[in-house]
């Protein structure tokens, strides 16, 4: 009788303990999910520059795509080059924050800045963007308008 009671108590304790373990395990798993996808590894990442004009200024976007779901964080550096050297632009190079979760195979804008005003030669210009160990270089599709030769060209982060 006593043994049976002890046995029932033992089995109740076992069930409770199992439930506690399961709950803790579930919470831990849930916690792991809320931490989000892993950081994107450069080897699995593709970067591209998307530049275009609006209102006389150049929008310079960094578009990323990854093979697996992953998180981008940190910062990228945008540099405008002319004939291989850094172009004379205030704020060049520009460091911009990079953030976003990438879905597998889908391109996404992850950072952008603006190049405003350019009154010098429009030849031999290129845009270089660096993120971690990756680097991408492109000829600008649009070079900003010259509204005022007295105002310095500038590279600024998005507001």
């Amino acid at each position, binding site marked *: 009788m006593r043994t049976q009671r002890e046995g029932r108590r033992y089995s109740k304790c076992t069930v409770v303990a199992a439930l506690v373990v399961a709950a803790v395990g579930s919470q831990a798993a849930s916690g792991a999910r809320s931490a989000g996808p892993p950081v994107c590894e450069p080897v699995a990442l593709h970067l591209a520059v998307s530049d*275009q004009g609006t209102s006389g200024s150049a929008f310079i976007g960094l*578009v990323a795509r990854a093979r697996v779901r992953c998180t981008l964080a940190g910062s990228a550096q945008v540099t405008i080059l002319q004939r291989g050297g850094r172009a004379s632009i205030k704020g060049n190079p520009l460091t911009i924050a990079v953030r976003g979760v990438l879905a597998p195979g889908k391109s996404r804008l992850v950072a952008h800045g603006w190049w405003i005003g350019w009154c010098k030669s429009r030849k031999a210009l290129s845009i270089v963007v660096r993120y971690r160990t990756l680097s991408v270089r492109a000829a600008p599709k649009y070079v900003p*308008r010259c509204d005022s030769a007295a105002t310095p060209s500038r590279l600024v982060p998005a507001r």
Partner: protein
Amino acid sequence: MSKSASGTGRLRSSARLVTVAIAAIAVACLAGPAGAQSPTPTLQMKDVAPGHSFPSGANAVVVEGLGSLNCLYSQSSIQTSTVSFINNVRKTVTEISPQSGCGSIGSYESLLNGIKNYVEANANNPGTYWAGFMLDEEPGFGFSASQLETLNNYTENIMVNTPGLSWYFQEDQPNGWVLSTYNTILGFSWPAPQVYTGSMNSAVNSECSTYGNCTNLVTFWAGAPAPYNSLSYTLSHVNGAPWSAASSYWGSGYWYNVFVAA
């Protein structure tokens, strides 16, 4: 002697300068800001990127779609954002900057038609809340004047049948072409010229005095070279009247547009 004569000459010269200065001040004070937009616009529309929230301090929102097509932003993000604002009872405009680096004139026609169809099908009461498109057309964007005229004619044809207010603005670079070309490109649009420099300001005022196109939604930019980084300076140097929607749609106020490097 020469010193005295020279002194007398300087005195006369100074007196003339003072007289001229007083006369100039008197003319300026009496005449007031003859070139100012009248009445002074007090309502502003402001840019946001697709997916972002309504801009603080604005009375209407301009969804800044950039070049779209092979550039940014996607048609779906532009039209979804436009409809979202309209369905939240926000006064809304959809901006596109057509440029040859992002697509052809034909593809821009398809883009505009697609966005128009989506908005008309999915927005609540678009005729009241959607003022239509804002096209930013500039010679530096790679299309010729005649190509832009083709696009604008197309836009007029698709928008003329939409109900209510919906039509289109042109947020153009007014000094980018000779005046007669600028006038032709404007077509029947609502002009929303960028007024960032004295040259742009002059072109807008010449369009008014030469062709009588004197109602402008002035596009202001706080990042423009001084003194056009001042809203009051800019509005006080543009002739004519500010844009105003028919009172049954956007009320009876007068508007200006703010470009934001968002």
